[in-house]
């Protein structure tokens, strides 16, 4: 007899060890998947950019005068959508140019829509009065329109052609010559 411990063979079949997940592992896996999904969605949303082509997201704007404009109803016209705010310096710089271009093109099948981003009604009204803007302007209530267009700041301007497609996106203050050239081109070619 010996006290040496040796591996021994038995006739008993070895217990089958299949691939089995415990409750903790399952919960952990589900948690990891959920976190990955949440981060994925957040990343996708962060990477969304302004539309530069294709159908322009439809919206309804109620102006400070109480009029209502729906983008889908403006098909057949070229629409200039300008996001601005009274607290924004570059918006003040471009405001006179926008008004001059509007005056020149309003009878040529062009509509301007000014969308005030996170602005107060008082501030927006003062801005409009100060720059004598006559085209439709309204507050972006709930920042819904800004969200649809994924704007990153103000001013930002989108040009929508007669078919309701975004054909130009300007991520800075516009000037008269630039905007006029774009409108001439879109009116002539629709693109």
């Amino acid at each position, binding site marked *: 007899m010996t006290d040496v411990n*040796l591996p021994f063979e038995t006739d008993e079949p070895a217990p089958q060890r299949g691939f089995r997940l415990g409750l*903790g592992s399952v*919960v952990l896996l589900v948690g990891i998947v959920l976190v990955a999904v949440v981060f994925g969605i957040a990343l996708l949303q962060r990477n969304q950019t302004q539309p530069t082509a294709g159908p322009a997201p439809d919206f309804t704007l109620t102006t400070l005068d109480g009029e209502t404009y729906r983008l889908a109803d403006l098909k057949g016209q070229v629409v200039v959508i300008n996001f601005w705010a009274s*607290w*924004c310096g570059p918006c003040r710089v471009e405001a006179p140019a926008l008004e001059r271009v509007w005056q020149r093109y309003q009878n040529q099948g062009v509509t301007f829509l000014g969308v005030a981003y996170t602005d*107060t009604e008082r501030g927006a009204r003062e801005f409009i009065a100060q720059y004598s803007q006559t085209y439709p302007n309204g*507050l972006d209530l709930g920042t819904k329109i800004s*969200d649809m267009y994924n704007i990153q700041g103000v001013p930002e301007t989108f040009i929508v052609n007669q078919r309701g497609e975004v054909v130009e996106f300007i991520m800075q203050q516009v000037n008269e010559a630039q905007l006029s050239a774009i409108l001439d081109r879109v009116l002539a070619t629709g693109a």
Partner: protein
Amino acid sequence: MNRFKNTRTILMVLFALLALAVPALAQDGGEVTADDVNAIAKKMYCPVCENIPLDVCGTAACDQWRDEIRIQLEQGFTEDAIISDFVSRYGDRVVGTPQDPTLRALSLVTPWLIGALVVILAGFGLLRWWRGRGTRAALAPAGAPASDDDYRARLERDLQGRR
């Protein structure tokens, strides 16, 4: 008669002083201070920057919003009414948490739920490790236990077979 006249004059002067003092006191009590504005502003966030409370934000947009809060306070709006008004005009991002009761509950409960889940998982893991330790200790051959005759017999049989 003269004494009555003097008393009446004194009373009239007192009333006049009181009449002057009341509006001044009322104005002092109703004045909206920067602290009043900031008490509400700190529950809101800058509209153009990320995660900066409105009370410490230095942008022109924040100045404008704080001014709007001051005006609404002067008009007698309550804190809740002002915040609700801002949320309706600028969306849930104003307050950082959704105003919708379901979404708000989810956003507030979820971190605690995840924390609880982690604690439960850690508990499970600890329990499994503890039980495993007990089993390993029982299976470990600590010399040849005198009472473990069956084990000893099987070992002897195996050794016999090898010889």
